[in-house]
C-alpha cells in the first residue's frame, strides 16, 4: 500500500505530512494497526539488504552494505607491527566506526556523534565474543612481525539500525580481506614480494591468503512498542519509539549478547524471546546474502588469477 492511499484514510482535514510531524506516534500506530509499516513492509520484515565487496582499490579488504537507505562502507588497511611480548604470534584488528557529517543532519563536522563510540564498542565486542577471526591468522613472523588491520566503517547514509549494517559491513570486509604476498628477512623485516631479493639474504616468501573465518556475528535491532516489535527500524521509527533491543547472534541463531540501552518501554521475558526468534529468522536470510556476496568476490579473484 502506498503512502498516498494511507493519506486518504488518515483524515480528510489533516494532510499526511503535517500529521506525521505533529503526531508521530499516532501516525506510526495507524500503520501498525493495519499490519504494515510506514515504508510499506510487513511488521516482522527487515529491509532489503545488499552487500558488495572489494569496492575500494586502496584497501586490502572492503565492503559496502545497504540496508534500506542505511549505507555503510568498510575498508581494511594493513600495516606491519611488532607483536606484543605476551602474544608473539598474534596480529591485531582495530575497529573504528565513523559518522562523517554527510550521513545525517544531526552530525556536525568536528564533533563526535553520540552513537560513534557506542557502535564501535559493540562491533569490537561482537568480534571478540564470536571469535570470527583468529588473530594468529595475522601472524607474519612470530615475535617479529604481524599484521595490524585497521578496519574503518563509514556511515554514508544514516537511516536507523546502524549497528546491524555496520557489523555486516565489518564481517564482509574481513571476509574480503586478502593478506598480500610478502617476503620476510631473518630479522623480521617485511618487504613487498616484488622487491629485489638479491639485497637481502635468507628471504622467506609468504603467499597471499584470505582469513579463515569462524562464526560470523550479526546484529538485529528491534524497535519496541508496548504492543509491537519492529525488526530493523528506520531512523524515524527509532526516534518515535525511543526504545530498541539489539540481539547479537551468529548466522545460526546462537546468541552472544542482548543490548537494550534504557528507553521508554520495558522489555518482558516474552519480548526478549520474540526478539531471539526474529534474529534467528533474520540470520538465515542474511547468511544467504552474505555467502553470495563473498563467493562472488572469490569467483572474481579466480578469474583474475586465470
Amino acid at each position, binding site marked *: 500500500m502506498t503512502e498516498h492511499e494511507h493519506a486518504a484514510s488518515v483524515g480528510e482535514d489533516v494532510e499526511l505530512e503535517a500529521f506525521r510531524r505533529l503526531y508521530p506516534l499516532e501516525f506510526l500506530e495507524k500503520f501498525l494497526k493495519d499490519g504494515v509499516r510506514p515504508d510499506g513492509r510487513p511488521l516482522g520484515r527487515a529491509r532489503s539488504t545488499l552487500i558488495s565487496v572489494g569496492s575500494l582499490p586502496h*584497501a586490502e579488504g572492503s565492503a559496502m552494505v545497504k540496508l534500506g537507505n542505511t549505507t555503510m562502507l568498510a575498508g581494511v588497511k594493513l600495516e606491519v607491527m611488532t607483536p606484543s611480548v605476551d602474544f608473539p604470534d598474534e596480529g*591485531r584488528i582495530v575497529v*573504528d566506526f565513523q559518522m562523517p557529517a*554527510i550521513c545525517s*543532519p544531526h552530525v556536525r563536522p568536528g564533533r563526535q556523534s553520540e552513537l560513534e563510540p557506542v557502535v564501535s564498542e559493540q562491533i569490537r565486542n561482537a568480534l571478540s565474543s564470536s571469535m570470527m577471526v583468529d588473530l594468529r591468522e595475522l601472524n607474519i613472523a612470530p615475535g617479529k612481525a604481524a599484521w595490524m588491520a*585497521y578496519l574503518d566503517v563509514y556511515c554514508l547514509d544514516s537511516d536507523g539500525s546502524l549497528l546491524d549494517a555496520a557489523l555486516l559491513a565489518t564481517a564482509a570486509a574481513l571476509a574480503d580481506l586478502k593478506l598480500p604476498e610478502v617476503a620476510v628477512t631473518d630479522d623480521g623485516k617485511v618487504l613487498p614480494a616484488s622487491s629485489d631479493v638479491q639485497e637481502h639474504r635468507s628471504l622467506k616468501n609468504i603467499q597471499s591468503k584470505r582469513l579463515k573465518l569462524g562464526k560470523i556475528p550479526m546484529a538485529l535491532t528491534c524497535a519496541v512498542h508496548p504492543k509491537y516489535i519492529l525488526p530493523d527500524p528506520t531512523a524515524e521509527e527509532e526516534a518515535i519509539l525511543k526504545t530498541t533491543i539489539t540481539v547479537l547472534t551468529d548466522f545460526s541463531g546462537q546468541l552472544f549478547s542482548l543490548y537494550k540501552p534504557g528507553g521508554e518501554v520495558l522489555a518482558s521475558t516474552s519480548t526478549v524471546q520474540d526478539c531471539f526468534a526474529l534474529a534467528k529468522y533474520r540470520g538465515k536470510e542474511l547468511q544467504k546474502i552474505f555467502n553470495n556476496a563473498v563467493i562472488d568476490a572469490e569467483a572474481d579473484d579466480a578469474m583474475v588469477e586465470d
Partner: protein
Amino acid sequence: MAASRVSSYSLESQRVSLARGSSALISPEGVREDGRSPHECRPAFLQTGAVNAAAGSAYAEFGQTKVIVSVFGPRESKKAQAYSDIGRLNCNVSFATFAGSVRGKAGQSTEEKEYSQMLYKGLEGAVALHTFPKTTVDVFALILQSGGGDLPVVLSCASLALADAGIVMYDLVSAISLSRLDTNLLLDATLGEEINQDGSLMLACMASRNEVTQLLLTGEWSQANLSEGLKLCLDACTKLAGLMRSTLKESTSNIED
C-alpha cells in the same frame, strides 16, 4: 603497547610505482598511462540523491576519484553567530581513512581545512545567498577515494548537490584541473600525473554565464602555455556542465515517472 613500531609497508611499495619521470607518464605518440590523449577527460559518473538523510546530495566518480557531497539546510545558524541579512554557506571537506594509499589519521588535517576553504570560495559566488537570509546551508563532502583532481571533483559534485537540495544558484559550477608536465598539458590529471607535475591549473566556472568563480595556479607558466591551458579548461568545464545538467534532468524525470 603492541604497535609500538608500525612500519608503513604500503607506503614504500606505493612510492616505487609513483616516482617516475614525465616520459613514463606520456608516450612519444601522446598517449597517457590510462590510454587517454592529453586533452581528454577521465570517464565521469554523476548521480544525485545519494544520501537520503540529506536535503540534497550527489555522488561523483571521475576515474579513480570518488566523492560524496551532502547538503543540509537552509537551517538555523549557530547561536553564536551575529545577525546576517544574507544566508551563510558552511563548507567542510574530509577524507576517509582509506582514501589514500597510506591510512589517514582521524581529526582534521591541514589539507582538509584548505579544501574546505577552497570549496567555500568556489561556491560562494554561485549561490544566491540573499534567498535564505539569517540561515545556513551546510555543504559537507567526504572523499572516499583520492585519485587526483580531488578539489575540482568535490566542487562540481557540491554544486550538483546544492541543485538537488533546491538551493537557488546563478548557475551550476563545474570545475576541472590541468597539470603541466614539461611542455605537455594534461587535462584532468590522475594522482600519478599530479605528483610529477611542474605546474597546475584549476578552474571553476559557471559555464553558461561564462564567469569564473575560482582559478588556482601553481608553478611556473609561460604566457602561451597559460592561455592554452585556460582555453582547454574552459572547454572541458562547458562539456562537464552539460553532463551535470543532463544528470539533474534525468533525476527529476525519474521522480515524475
